[in-house]
Structures are given as structure tokens and as C-alpha cells.
């Protein structure tokens, strides 16, 4: 166990999934307040055909180009979702479900074709579905790390702009902030976070790394800033702990373990969270009933 931890490649992989988790936790907070938690799920699935097409064109597995392919495909998906839900009576969640499953289906068609070629069969493209951090080589780690740090940097420098953009877009407009520009930037960082997570966590479960930590963080604070930080910490913890767990078994997928850790943190927050945690809520409810009873009694006496 310790030997795997001390292995320098493993250390790099762990470090990069931690940074990925931090980036995902931060972007997840924004997605939560934009009420777009499931959009990240849809976009992750929609990225699959792009990954495979990039591979088919290139003929080899180069993470950087696969990420570009994934990003283009996810953006096309995002554009379709918006177009369908804006121009027809179809609700946004139906549009997301459609794009998610159709793009994924298309991706599976292509994957089956790619796997028939000798190179494709060896390439471990299948690993993109559930992610396997252990298969990352040094250059993959650098690509991932660099992009994740860029995302964190963008969130960090524009912190107050993001805050206004999320909570009061109209006011932001009044301040001269370009909503269109912010939207483009937001979509860009969201898609970047999703696609760099695909190799480590997989297309199916990367969304969990965006959704769960932000929901957990809400149980501890009312401040957006603290929520962002907590969500980042929990995301980072889930990333690194999940990846480590998955290296314990032979060929274990990383994604599910990352999700498991995130879910465990969520359950802890749900129960013990300072704000609206179940335990606190229970105490409040008891107090409510008591207050109400007390009123009843005094009311009765007054009559």
C-alpha cells in the first residue's frame, strides 16, 4: 500500500486528481447557483463522441487533442440544449436528457467502430467511460494539471464578478459587466473542468464531482465565499481519496470511488451540517413546536 503511495507517478496522479477535484468543487458551486447541476452531467456524456472522433482522426491517444475533441462535442451539445429549450415547448430537462443519451449513443457507435481497429482496441478508450486515473502517463498529468490550475485561477481572479453574475445578473448588467461574455466564460470553464476530468473519473460520473461537493458545502455556510472554499476542499479530498482507493485493486475504475468519497462527505454534512443539517433541523423543529404550544397555552388563558 505504501509502496504505491511512494511511487512518484502515483503521487503525481494523486496530486492532479486533487487539483481536478478542487476545480470541480469550485465550478460546481457556480453550477449549483445557476441551477444547472444536471447540465454538467449532460455535457459530460455529450463529450464522448468528440473523444472518439479525435482519436479516429489522430490514430493515437493524445490527451490534449482528445480534450479538444471532447470540448467541441460538449459545446455542440450545450448549444443544442439551449436551442431546443428556447425555440420549442420542450422543457430544458427533456432537452438535456435527449442530448445526453443521443450523443452518448452516437459515442458508443463510434467507440465500437474504433475498437475494431487494432490501435483502438489497445488504446484503452473504454476507460474513458468510468475513468482510470492509474492509466494516466506523465504528459496526461501535466495537461490535466495545467488546465485545472487555469480554471481555478479564472475563478479566483474574477471572484466578485462571478458573485454578482450568479446572484443578480440584472445588477451585473447595470454595472457594465457583459453578461454574454460572462456566460461564454462560464460555459468555457465548465466544459474545461468536465473534459479534463473525463480520463480520471469518466464521462458517466464526472458530473458527481461537480454536483455533490457544492451541495455538501451548503450545509455548513451561508456565505458564497466560504461555500466555494469548502466545496473546493471537499472536491479535492474526494478526488485524492477516491483515486487512492481505486489504486488498491487491480483494474478498479476511479470514478465510482471518487463519487463514493464525495457521497460520504455529503452524508456527513447532511447530518451534522451547521446550517440546515438534519440534526440542527430536528432541534429547531422541536423548538418550533414548543413555541407554538406555549403560544397556544397563553392564548387559551387570555380568553
Amino acid at each position: 500500500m505504501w509502496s504505491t503511495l511512494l511511487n512518484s507517478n502515483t503521487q503525481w496522479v494523486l496530486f492532479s486528481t486533487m487539483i481536478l477535484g478542487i476545480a470541480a468543487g469550485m465550478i460546481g458551486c457556480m453550477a449549483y447557483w445557476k441551477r444547472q447541476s444536471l447540465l454538467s452531467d449532460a455535457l459530460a456524456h455529450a463529450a464522448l463522441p468528440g473523444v472518439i472522433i479525435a482519436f479516429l482522426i489522430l490514430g493515437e491517444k493524445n490527451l490534449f487533442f482528445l480534450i479538444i475533441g471532447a470540448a467541441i462535442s460538449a459545446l455542440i451539445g450545450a448549444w443544442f440544449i439551449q436551442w431546443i429549450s428556447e425555440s420549442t415547448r420542450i422543457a430544458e430537462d427533456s432537452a438535456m436528457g435527449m442530448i445526453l443519451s443521443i450523443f452518448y449513443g452516437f459515442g458508443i457507435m463510434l467507440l465500437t467502430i474504433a475498437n475494431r481497429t487494432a490501435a483502438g482496441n489497445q488504446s484503452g478508450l473504454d476507460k474513458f467511460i468510468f475513468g482510470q486515473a492509474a492509466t494516466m502517463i506523465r504528459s496526461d498529468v501535466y495537461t490535466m494539471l495545467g488546465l485545472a490550475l487555469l480554471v481555478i485561477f479564472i475563478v479566483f481572479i474574477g471572484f466578485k464578478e462571478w458573485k454578482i453574475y450568479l446572484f443578480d445578473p440584472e445588477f451585473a448588467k447595470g454595472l457594465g459587466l457583459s453578461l454574454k461574455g460572462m456566460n461564454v466564460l462560464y460555459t468555457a470553464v465548465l466544459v474545461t473542468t468536465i473534459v479534463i476530468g473525463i480520463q480520471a473519473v469518466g464521462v458517466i460520473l464526472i458530473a458527481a464531482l461537480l454536483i455533490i461537493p457544492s451541495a455538501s458545502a451548503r450545509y455548513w455556510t451561508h456565505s458564497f465565499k466560504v461555500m466555494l472554499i469548502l466545496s473546493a476542499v471537499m472536491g479535492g479530498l474526494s478526488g485524492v481519496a477516491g483515486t487512492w482507493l481505486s489504486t488498491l485493486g487491480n483494474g478498479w475504475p476511479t470514478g465510482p470511488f471518487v463519487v463514493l468519497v464525495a457521497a460520504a462527505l455529503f452524508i456527513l454534512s447532511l447530518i451534522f451540517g451547521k446550517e440546515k443539517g438534519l440534526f440542527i433541523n430536528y432541534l429547531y423543529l422541536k423548538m418550533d413546536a414548543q413555541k407554538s404550544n406555549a403560544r397556544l397555552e397563553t392564548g387559551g388563558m387570555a380568553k
Partner: protein
Amino acid sequence: MSYAAWIILTASLVGLSCGLIGVFLILRKMAMMSDAISHTVLLGIVCAYLVTKEVSGPAMLVGAILAGLLTAFLVQWLHSLDIQQEASIGIVFTTLFAIGVILIATSVGNAHLDVQHALMGEITFIPWNTTVLPLIGSVPKATVLLAFVFVVALIVIIAFYKEWKLTSFDPALAASLGIPVLFMHYVFMTLVSITTVASFDAVGAIMVVAMLITPASSAYLWTDRLSVMLLLSCAFGVISAVIGYFIALWLDTSISGSMAFATGILFLISFIFSPKHGILAKYVRPTKAY
């Protein structure tokens, strides 16, 4: 019946059941719930396998129903704790699905259950796994299960047609008229679960979402009547299944992936050419005539 005929029949049954259920899914604004249930059903199947040590129809159905209800219940519960509906769905299904995958990958992974199969479906193997029915003879097990589920879904939808309509359109009024809205919600989630699990073998966890949502959405663009929408949705489901099968044959690729892709083609056609809601119609007649 020939090998191809069995596959087409099975796929058509998937199209019919999913088309029927899908209409109410999108009208009840629960499209993403189907995505969630299609994932968590995996956990139900794994647990059923762990208990009975076999991958059989009835055990799978029970496992799937329990998993589906658990998902619906947990989502409802988290939502009642002030977590956004969307986020609740995301949390519940990814977690339960992750547990299912881990169970398969660590302990029960064998010839009967593997993740690949769960995600992509194995419709090509269906005709070989047969059972003998009285009067009819040898029939693929998956086809029998699907036919059974379709009949159940059809009966439940038709018998309570007006209640489904009312609880979908105006749950508040339904409640004030004394219709058990919450109970019907869980009945519906059960229908979604059994439809999903029956379609699982054929198309897998994610493509079943395409079969559920897309034909119904396409139908929604063509008509303003619920009954017509149901018929169209079923028809689109069957057409997608058949077209998908032939695309897969032609390109020699995944049948389930091709079916999902085919639902997309039908939707695209509806999206462009639908006389009332299509983009072409909007382009020709930009203002809506009242």
C-alpha cells in the same frame, strides 16, 4: 422466427414501452428522473444477483422496482430538505450507480454481470437465451419480459388515463379532488423502473433514456392532444428501434448506440419540419397566430 426478426421484435417492444411511459415522463417534468432511475436500476440488479445468485427475470424486476422507488424516495427526501431538485437527482443517482459499479468491479464481476453489458446492452445475444412458453414455443427470455412489462404499463396507463392526465397537469387540483397524488407518483416511478429494467438487456442503462425521452419529445412537437401524442410517441419509438437496427447492421456497430442515434434523427426531423413548433415553421411564420 429468424434471428433478425427476434431482435427487431424485441427492439420494437422497447420502443413501444418507452414511448408510452416517456410521454408522461416529459409532461410531469421528470425527464432527468428517468436518467437517474436508468442508472440506479443497475444497483437493483446487482443486489438481486447478490441475493439470488442468478440473473433472472423476476428477481431483476423486483430489484429494479426497489432501486427505482429508493431513487424516487431519496430524491424527494433530499428535495424536501431544501436541496434543489436537480442537485438531489444528481447526488442520488451518481452515488447509487457508483455503488453498483463498485460491487460489480470488486466482488461479483463474472460472466453474468459486467459493466460493459449494463451500459451498452447486448441485444445481439437475446435470441439465444430462450425459454419455452406454452402454445407459442421457444421465445427469448428478454422478449417475454418486455412483452409482459409493456402489457402491464399499457393496462395501468389506460385504466387510470384521466387520473394520469390530471395529476400530470394540475397536481394541486388532483389532490383537492382526493386523488392520491403522491401514491400515483410512486406508481409511476415503478412503471419507469420496470420499463427500464426490461429494456436494460436490449439497450443498456443510458440508451434507454434516449428511448424514453426522445420519441415523446418528438411527438410533443406534432400534436396538441395527449392521446395522439401517446400513439405518435410509441410509433416513433418503434421506428427508431427498427432504423437503429439497420444502421447498426450497415455500419457494423453497436445496435443500442444506433437506436439512440436513430431517435435523434427522428427528433431532428420533427424539430425542423413540425408544422406548429418546428423551426422552419417559425422561420416562415415568425409571429404566433392566436
